[in-house]
Each structure stands twice: as C-alpha cells, then as structure tokens.
C-alpha cells in the first residue's frame, strides 16, 4: 500500500463565540490515498466544512483554534505559516466549493479566474496560460464561449465546471470538494459527478468529498467517514458502511435516503431530534439523546475502534450482533426503535 497523500490525525477545530468555545471538529483522523475518493458525510452542522477548510487553512482566524496534525506528504498543514500554506493551495491541494455562483468573482471573466489560478503558481506567460485555461475548460465540458463569459452569464452546471477547471489548473494531488453538487439540480448533479469520477481516473488525484447526500457517496466514493456532531462515528469502505453499518446514526442516515436501503419509495424515516450543543464537555456518546438504543454504557464516550474487522471502525457501545439485529426493519436498514437494550 502506498503512503497516503493526506493523513489527518486527531484533528480538532474550535471557534470562540459569544457563548463560549464551540468545538466544531473533535479528534478526527483519516487518510486519503492516490486515486481514492473519501467521502465525509453527516447532517448540516456536523463539522464537515470546518474540517475540510482547516486542511486548506481557509478558516484560520483570530477566534479559531486548531489541534492535532494533518500531513500533506511531508508538510504539516496545521503548523505551517500562511505563506507556506499558500504555496500548496491550488498546486497540491485544490478546493471545489458548494455554491459555484457565490464562489466565482462576479466582476471577473470566468477564463481570467482560471488563468489567475494558473499564474499564481507557475511562471507562464499570460498567453500560454490563456491557451491552457481554454483547453482545460473545454476538457471539463465547457463550451469555448465560456472563457470570456462573466459568471452570471453561465448556468449552474457550467459555473461548477469553471470551478473544477480552476481547481485542476495546477494538477493538484488532492481535491477537496465541499458539497460540489448540492447547489445543482439533479441532472446537472449527475454530470458533475461523472466528471469528478473521470478526473480521478485520469489524473489520479485523491478526492476528499464532503457531502450530506449518500446518493453522491454511492456514485463516487471508495471509502466513507460518517461524521456526527464534530466526531467521526463510523469509517469503512462504501460497501462495508452501506451493507454492514455499525453505528445507529449511520442506520438513520441510510434509512432516510431513498433508493439506497432497498426501499421501494416508502416514507423516509428522518432522524428525530437535534444534535447536542458543543459548548461544554461531553456527557457520553454524542448521539445519546437521539439514539433509541441508548443504554447504561453510553454514559461514557465510545472510542472509534475497529469492532467488526480491519478498516471498518465505529463509535458505538452496542455489541456487533446486537447491531446487526437491531438495524433491520422488514428487510431494510433504519433507526426505528425496537425495544430498549438492557
């Protein structure tokens, strides 16, 4: 196995707010390898973006506090100064944002923004950069006219393609895609996903895919990390997590996603309740308040451990056989309560 492109160890991110310090991300660890797509899934507010932005240093601010380590090759991303981080942004690590309209500068032409990304790192003439940018934009499926267009003149899918072209402009090894399809309508989503899949094949880049949509995960990812309230609660291959999910929160997610858990368009079971506050210290498993299977052991925080097998880890105290028993409801996975554990 090759050494990972990106290795995150025990990452913590907290923000100072008027109410106190909010722990957006807590002891998150994962690895991303060449040509691999790792998806981070979780509901809104889970800390997915905070985690991704911390890697690029884009949420550094006087009120933000980072702990742990993140290695991009030999470079420790959390420790290096802004100037050094700037050199890897765009070249080794690039961002594909959620909302391509607000992420594009409204007063600059699309092509110029791609050219700017190229020339930020490489000594190329404006002319050569323009040629390359034009070719790159065509290669991600944009019409030639898009080069000279302003963002507001492009459709949503085209804007996201511009962002992708911009991200690819210096052949990054790691792509961080923060909900790349959320702002797009369904048919465009499929096109953009296909484009990302093709890119991974062609360039061998590792993609860190942030999403709350398990459909996107199924379409693109190799491995998944499920995040809940700032912590990873389950990690494994897509196959493992989708077919042998270990954490009740994952069951809930799978149960509430149509077309995944073998459902035939039945009513979706959304997970009742809201995530806990992340101001004070933890009182046991963070999913407790919403978990129908909560029991005495849950008063202590479970570790993220490989309980079923190598590579597949979860953060739940239930014994594996209990998990397998409780997650099935008439042949589909879900979180409906079925008796409270002893």
């Amino acid at each position, binding site marked *: 196995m090759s050494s990972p492109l990106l290795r995150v160890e025990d990452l913590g991110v907290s923000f100072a707010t008027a109410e106190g310090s909010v722990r957006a991300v807590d002891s998150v660890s994962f690895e991303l390898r060449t040509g691999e797509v790792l998806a981070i899934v979780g509901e809104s507010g889970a800390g997915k973006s905070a985690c991704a932005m911390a890697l690029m240093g*884009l949420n550094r601010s006087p009120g933000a506090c980072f702990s742990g380590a993140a290695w991009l090759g030999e470079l420790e991303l959390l420790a290096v100064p802004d100037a050094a981080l700037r050199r890897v942004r765009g070249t080794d690590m690039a961002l594909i944002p959620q909302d391509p309209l607000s992420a594009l500068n*409204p*007063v*600059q032409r699309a092509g110029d923004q791609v050219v700017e990304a190229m020339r930020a790192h490489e000594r190329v003439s404006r002319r050569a950069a323009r040629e390359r940018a034009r070719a790159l934009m065509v290669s991600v499926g944009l019409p030639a006219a898009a080069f000279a267009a302003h963002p507001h003149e492009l459709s949503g899918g085209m804007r996201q393609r511009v*962002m992708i072209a911009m991200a690819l402009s210096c052949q990054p090894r790691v792509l961080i895609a923060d909900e790349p399809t959320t702002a797009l309508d369904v048919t465009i989503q499929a096109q953009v996903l296909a484009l990302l899949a093709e890119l991974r094949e062609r360039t061998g880049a590792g993609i860190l895919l942030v999403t709350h949509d398990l459909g996107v995960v199924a379409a693109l990812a190799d491995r998944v990390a499920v995040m809940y309230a700032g912590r990873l609660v389950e990690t494994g291959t897509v196959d493992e997590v989708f077919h042998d999910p270990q954490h009740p929160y994952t069951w809930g997610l799978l149960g509430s996603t149509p077309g995944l858990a073998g459902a035939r368009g039945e009513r979706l079971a959304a997970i009742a309740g809201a995530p806990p506050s992340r101001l004070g210290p933890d009182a046991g498993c963070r999913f407790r308040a919403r978990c129908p299977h909560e029991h005495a052991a849950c008063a202590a925080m479970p570790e993220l451990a490989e309980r079923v097998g190598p590579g597949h880890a979860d953060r739940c105290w239930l014994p594996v056989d209990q998990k397998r028993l409780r997650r099935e409801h008439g042949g589909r996975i879900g979180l409906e309560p079925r008796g409270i554990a002893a």
Partner: protein
Amino acid sequence: MLSFLVRRLAAMVLVLFAISVLTFSIFNVIPNGEPENRMAGRTQTPAQVEAIRREWGFDRGMVVQYATTMRKVFTGDLISYYNGSRVGEEILRGLPRTFSLAVGAALLWMALAVALGLYSAVRSGRLSGWLTGALAVIGISMPVFWVGALMNHYLGFEAGLFPNGGYVPLTEDPLAWAHHLILPWTALSILFIGVYSRVLRSSVMDTMSEDYVRTARAKGLSEGRVLVRHVLRNSLIPIVSLWGLDFGAVLGGGAILTETVFDLQGVGQYAAESIDQLDVPPVLAVTMLGAFFIVVLNTVVDVLYAVLDPRIRIGRL
C-alpha cells in the same frame, strides 16, 4: 445606451429647470433692493433705469422676469445686479480655480481614502485598525473652514511653508500652482477621506466574507493580490458613486467653504459673495452650473458602475 443618454438628458433639463425656479423664487420672495437701480450704477439717469427695467422685465410679473433672466443665462448676457459685471466672464475666471481645487482634491482623497479604508478593514479588531477608524471619525467631525484656517495660520503664516491663500494659473507656473493648492487640497480632502474610508471599510469587511474571496485564497493567491484583485474591486462600487457626486459638486462650486477660507476666488466663493449682496444672476448661474455637474457626474457614475460590475447593464438603468 442611446436611450439611456436621452433619458438622462431629459432628466437633467428638468432638474436644471426646477433648480433655477427654486433659486429664482428664494430671492424673489424677499425685498431685493430694486435691482434696476443697482444695475444702473451711481451716475444713472431715469431713462437708463427705465430701459433696464424694461429689458429685465422688472416691471412685469415673476414669470416674465424669470423667462428674461433665463434667456440671458443662455445667451451669455447675464449681468450682475450689484455691479453690472458679466456673470459669464466671472464664472469663466473662477472655473479654472475651482477645477484645479476639485481635480487635485478628488484624486488625493480617493487615493488616501482607499488606503486608509483598506488598512482599517484589514486591521479591524486590532489597535491600529481602531486608531485609523478613530482618525476617520475625527476627519468627518471637523469643519472644513476651521481646519483650513488653522492650516493657513500655522503652516502658511507662522511656519511660512505655504503662501497665504490665492491662486496661480497652472499655465503660468505649475509649481506655484501646486504650492498654492496643497493646503486647500488637503483641507478639503480631510473630510472626504473620513467619509470614504469609513464607507470603504465596511464594504471591504462585507466583501472579505464572500465565498469568492475564499476561492481566491484557495487558489493560493497572495494576501495582497486577494485584497487588490478580489476584495477591492468589488468594494469600490459604493464609494465610486459617492466620489462621482462629490467630485461633481466640487467642480460646480460646491466647495464654498474651502474656496472662501483659502481665498481661491473660484465659482463657489463667487456664488457665496453674490448671495451676500442679494445678487440673483450669479447665484442662479452657479447653482445651475453645480446642478449640471452633479447630474453629469451622476451619469458618469452609472456608466462606471456598469464597467465595474458586469452584472449591471447600462440599458437597464
């Protein structure tokens, strides 16, 4: 574009008309000292007075008087009630002075306001940002003529660094021209720097939290480039419109206080002195000139908007 210009032109005619009526009525509701007597001068004969009365329509109703005066505005025959001098010539004499003040000051205040506003936005939350913000508040809180008088006294009179008021034409001696104008430029700019840097600061702070600024950082651009290429250009839009209007107003003689305190003898000072003598024709002319520049610059601003922000189309304005 054409229809835009036509509409703007029509609006300008309307505004100028309304402003001239307003000016004319302000001075005609008050006893005005029989302008025909004042115009005829000291060695007047009753025939002369009668001729002037007839010519200007002073013996007829307000509407006729207004119409005659306006005709004289456009034929260039307007003369002062006070001393019979030709208003057109006086204005032409004052315009280069006013223009010199306006152009220099407008460049100075825009450049410094951008620098100060950007700095205080980037440094916000720190002492240096707080201090620059405080400076800007002091800038907008000082009366121009007071600052001007103090500068004139301490830097001009006591230290002897600058001439004590007055004006030298640019064509005569560019250095002396600038030397005479440095204090007026500075005094007038202080206020505007305060206003503009405050507006710019808040618009920069808004822009900095935009997604596309994050994108620019994600591309690996240097912080300076992010600021100039992505933050500044988008933040300039609100102050460009202020700038156009204020520049237009100063061009049209709006900087009366600065012109007066430095005795520049520009059109603004001319208007203020004419008001003092209840001399309607010069006031009328200068007001219309001022409004003309304001409306023209307003149009220029709209065009600039469209240049700065491609989402705005001229035709739709």
